[in-house]
């Protein structure tokens, strides 16, 4: 390694002179590009100029529109030259310039000529260039040539056409899909890479057709796939098919598993690894299935190639999360990787060991890690700290050595994120392992004695205030806290004062001493610190005697603060301009920030010091809250179900409208979500006029217009109907969007004064039976079915007529009923002749319903179905049958 360094130093001075691009300047190169127009082309010179242009682009220089166009036109002249090398550079620069569609026409004919040239190199490259810059209309013109090229005997040409097909499928799927036959032929090609590209394209063409993908995989896994890359693809597609065919483990062997296992003995490492990874990621993989994959990965661990070691250890690390036992065999190999040169590999090895390690190996492991920690970067250290935290939660008895480890690394150098990860871990351990509390708190106290991060100091002080008073000897923490008042900045001092007061409030023996300390704080130089000290002094009362303060005040100052901060903020904002005194009780507490519930949730990233990350509320939740905020809907009672949005307009129309159906016991509310997609318009008084003449049992009770709908910011308008109570009334509604449209000046964004009334026809909306059934799953269908009893069971048989496939019929019935499929029975294994599907749900009026559907193929396409319904109410069972009978 030293040798190249020496050489570099020697050359360093004259190296700069030798760079062919030294002092290169865009303007000069553009001037030079004029040689492209010479009648006698100098091919070598032109190539050099193109290289210079490409160099500029590569260095991040950009050409203006005019410059690019000029260069492009000049370059097109170079098609006159017959020089091979120059032509290659021309192709390259055309791709880099990515000309606009009106410019493309200029080179089209030249490129098409090259596409039909005798020189294969020209053909392959011309195809790639043309497909890169082409648009739909041009594509239809060259389609014929591309189809030929796909089955060309020259592999380079065929690959060029296939790869271009893969790109074009994104923009012009309907054209590329017509090439299926040629692509299928190319899959059988003798050239490995053609096979790879053809397989990738064929799969993408058919990816939405599960049956076709399954057939493709079935035929190819039996045949011979030559290229390792194609083999990797096939493994990916196979695991997709396995995933979609559902779990067949109880019925014996998983389909295609043998193929995956066979790939573990392939001669290419790439394929072996792909197969091993695919096996480890199978749903519900059994240990018997895992073993061969783990064995090859274990061999990779001791490979001389870092890439192989990394790939193996990363995969094993993932396996260890779910099946730690399966990985323990690799522990010895893994331990030797701790000293791996590549720190990524070492970190992955350590975290895997931490996951798979058993209680007895913890101490030995910790010793090894201590040496390792000193020479890795912070980002790796954080990963290790997190792994140690979960290990400690797994083996609470080992808390002592793990806590010691954490406190040791806390004392060492490190950045904020690293220190925060350690502190968070200690806090979580204190919370979850009672024995660790006292030692953990002392470690934190020691840390704040010498902590440079204000954020961490204040967080720890707050935590001490909560946990410290509950310990056996609270007084020992006081010294650490009071030291902060002397030594730290104002923010930390203020929170130290609060913490002191909390000790005083919670521990009566300490109160007189705390009071003395607080009195000293009154002379602090900072306002906030003085204010807090004075406030707490008054609440705690003087000379140690317990003052009868208002209990509410005490609760407020020292109790837990359970009001969501977001709500408090809104309430305070409302309070500022108002005259009324502020009342904390008026702040709503509804928002579910739920920091407590989240703390314990396993698997989730544990949150540290009171930092709660409240996830987005579920849609049902947010709908309910939104509807409650509209007074007219408040007396409708409890919301039963909100449907998924139904589109009432085609995509890309002027106004996009979809509707959500909210079902109540006696009412139904349509929430129309409208989006105005015209920048030059402002809509006002937007309302949907609903014609319910085909829904006789519904009567409109209320509608809430949308005041204004500016461009691209969605708004809602509502219409409410009354309907017979507790019944699943169905009907069809015609909708018209009515509004006042105002022109908007695009330059100023201001709307004109006067508007015009206008209407816009929307599609019809149907309320169907499925709207009255909630999708509610049951964990054990059989138990639920048995316990429901046969009292209200209704069984009948139906002929569904000719269907495309069994799966299609199953899906149609599930959608019709709108119930929750249980135990993965919605997936129909390919090629099966019969299928049983289990559904569960809750019918309006909170009545549980279970459905058992047995499908069978009757003749080639005809599907017959037996429907068994059990529910708590026989009328509901009948209603379900009626839905199916009418559907």
């Amino acid at each position, binding site marked *: *390694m030293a040798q*190249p360094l020496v050489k*570099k130093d020697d*050359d360093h001075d004259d*190296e700069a002179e*030798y*760079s*062919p*691009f030294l002092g290169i300047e865009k303007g000069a190169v553009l001037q030079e590009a004029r040689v492209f127009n010479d009648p006698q082309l100098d091919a070598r010179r032109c*190539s050099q100029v193109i*290289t210079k242009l*490409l*160099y500029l682009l*590569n*260095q*991040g220089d*950009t050409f203006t529109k005019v410059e690019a166009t000029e260069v492009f036109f000049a370059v097109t002249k170079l098609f006159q030259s017959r*020089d*091979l*090398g120059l032509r*290659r*550079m021309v192709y*390259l620069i055309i*791709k880099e310039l990515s000309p606009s569609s009106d410019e493309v026409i200029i080179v089209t004919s030249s490129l098409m000529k090259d596409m039909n040239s005798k020189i294969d*190199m020209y053909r392959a490259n011309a195809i*790639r260039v043309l497909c890169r810059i082409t648009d739909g209309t041009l594509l239809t013109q060259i389609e014929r040539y591309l189809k030929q090229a796909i089955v060309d005997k020259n592999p*380079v040409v065929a*690959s060029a056409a296939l*790869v*271009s097909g*893969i*790109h074009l499928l*994104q923009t012009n799927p309907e054209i590329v899909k017509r090439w299926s036959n040629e692509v299928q032929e190319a899959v059988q090609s003798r050239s490995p*890479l053609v096979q*790879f*590209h053809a397989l*990738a394209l064929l799969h993408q063409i058919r990816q939405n057709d599960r049956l076709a993908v399954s057939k493709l995989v079935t035929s190819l896994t039996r045949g011979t796939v030559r290229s390792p*890359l194609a083999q*990797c*693809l096939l493994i*990916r*597609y196979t*695991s997709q098919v396995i995933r979609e065919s559902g779990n067949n483990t109880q019925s014996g062997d998983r389909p295609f598993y043998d193929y995956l296992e066979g790939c573990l003995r392939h001669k290419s*490492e*790439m394929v072996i*690894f*792909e197969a091993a*990874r695919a096996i480890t*990621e199978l749903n519900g993989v059994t240990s018997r299935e895992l073993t061969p994959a783990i064995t090859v990965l274990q061999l990779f661990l001791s490979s*001389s*190639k*870092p*890439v*192989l070691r*990394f*790939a193996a250890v*990363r995969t094993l690390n993932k396996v260890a999360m779910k099946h730690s036992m399966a990985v323990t065999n690799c522990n010895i190999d893994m331990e030797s990787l701790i000293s791996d*040169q*590549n720190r*990524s590999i070492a970190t992955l090895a350590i975290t895997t060991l931490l996951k798979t390690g058993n209680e007895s190996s913890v101490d030995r492991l910790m010793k090894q890690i201590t040496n390792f920690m000193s020479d890795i970067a912070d980002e790796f250290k954080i990963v290790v700290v997190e792994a140690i935290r979960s290990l400690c939660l797994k083996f609470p008895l080992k808390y002592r050595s793990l806590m010691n480890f954490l406190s040791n690394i806390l004392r060492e150098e490190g950045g904020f994120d690293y220190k925060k990860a350690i502190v968070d871990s200690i806090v979580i351990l204190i919370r979850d392992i009672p024995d660790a509390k006292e030692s953990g708190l002392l470690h934190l106290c020691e840390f704040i004695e010498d902590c440079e991060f204000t954020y961490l100091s204040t967080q720890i002080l707050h935590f001490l205030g909560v946990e410290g008073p509950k310990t056996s000897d609270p007084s020992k923490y006081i010294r650490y806290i009071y030291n902060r008042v002397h030594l730290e900045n104002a923010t930390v001092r203020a929170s130290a004062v609060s913490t002191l007061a909390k000790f005083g409030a919670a521990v009566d023996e300490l109160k007189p001493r705390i009071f003395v300390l607080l009195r000293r704080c009154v002379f602090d130089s900072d306002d906030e610190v003085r204010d807090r000290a004075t406030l707490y002094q008054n609440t705690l009362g003087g000379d140690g005697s317990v003052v009868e303060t208002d209990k509410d005040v005490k609760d407020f100052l020292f109790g837990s603060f359970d009001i969501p901060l977001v709500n408090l903020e809104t309430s305070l904002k409302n309070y500022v301009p108002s005259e009324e005194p502020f009342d904390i009780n008026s702040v709503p507490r509804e928002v579910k920030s739920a920091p407590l519930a989240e703390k314990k949730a396993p698997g989730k990233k544990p949150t540290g010091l009171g930092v709660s990350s409240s996830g987005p509320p579920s849609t049902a939740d947010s709908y309910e809250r939104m509807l409650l905020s509209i007074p007219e809907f408040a007396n409708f009672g409890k919301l039963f179900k909100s449907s998924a949005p139904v589109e009432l307009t085609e995509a890309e129309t002027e106004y996009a409208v979809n509707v959500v159906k909210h079902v109540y016991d006696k009412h139904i509310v349509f929430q129309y979500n409208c989006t105005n997609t015209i920048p030059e318009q402002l809509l006002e008084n937007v309302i949907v006029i609903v014609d319910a003449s085909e829904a006789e049992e519904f009567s409109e009770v209320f509608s809430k217009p949308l005041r204004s709908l500016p461009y691209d910011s969605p708004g809602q308008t509502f219409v409410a109907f009354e309907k017979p109570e507790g019944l699943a009334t169905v009907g069809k509604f015609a909708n018209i969007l009515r509004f006042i449209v105002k022109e908007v000046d695009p330059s100023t964004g201001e709307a004109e004064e006067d508007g015009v009334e206008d209407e816009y026809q929307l599609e019809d909306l149907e309320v169907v039976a499925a709207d009255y059934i909630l999708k509610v799953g049951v964990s054990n269908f059989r138990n639920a079915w048995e316990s429901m009893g046969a009292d209200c069971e209704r069984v009948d048989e139906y002929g569904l007529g000719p269907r495309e496939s069994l799966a299609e019929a199953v899906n149609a019935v599930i959608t019709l009923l709108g119930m929750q499929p249980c135990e993965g029975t919605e997936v129909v294994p390919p090629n099966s002749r019969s299928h049983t599907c289990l559904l569960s749900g809750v019918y309006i009026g909170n009545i549980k319903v279970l459905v058992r559907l047995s499908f069978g193929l009757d003749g080639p396409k005809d599907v017959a179905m037996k429907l068994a319904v059990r529910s708590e109410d026989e009328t509901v069972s009948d209603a379900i049958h009626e839905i199916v009978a009418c559907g």
Partner: protein
Amino acid sequence: MSAPYSEACPSVKNILLLDSDGKRVAVKYFSDDWPTNAAKEAFERVVFTKTQKTNARTEAEIAMFENYIVVYKFVQDLHFFVTGGDDENELILATVLTAFFDSVGTLLRGNVDKREALENLDLILLCIDEIVDGGIILETDPNVIAGKVASNSIDSAAPLSEQTLTQAFATAREHFTRSLLK
């Protein structure tokens, strides 16, 4: 629209050739993950600084950051990188790196350093163009790649490694005169 990796075609996010100061010699991005030149340069800087101190001269090395997998190999004052998504098969990326590294080695006739690379930048750019097309791997055999790229300087499409001594001498002489004329 991106399919989960397990259904997607293996893809390469970028191919980078940097010098020993982390400056660009030749780079090609196949993904929109880095929309601006500034974003690209920032990524290159991170890749360069994080791998700088590692020894990737005998075997290709690998690192993972910002949810990308980067395989890399160094020779003289040149740093070769190939980047893929974090779900990509590491060994496929390593194959692409080998294809790039070895074909450049062949094209530069073993004199793989920055000066030589810049003087033959056209070959390097063509080489990248022959390895990956829009993120999809086009060819992985270094000899075939070098053969395709070099077919402009020699008449037959025979791979460069199979050139006769006379041919090699002729091309070398041509090369030499060219650099004198500059």
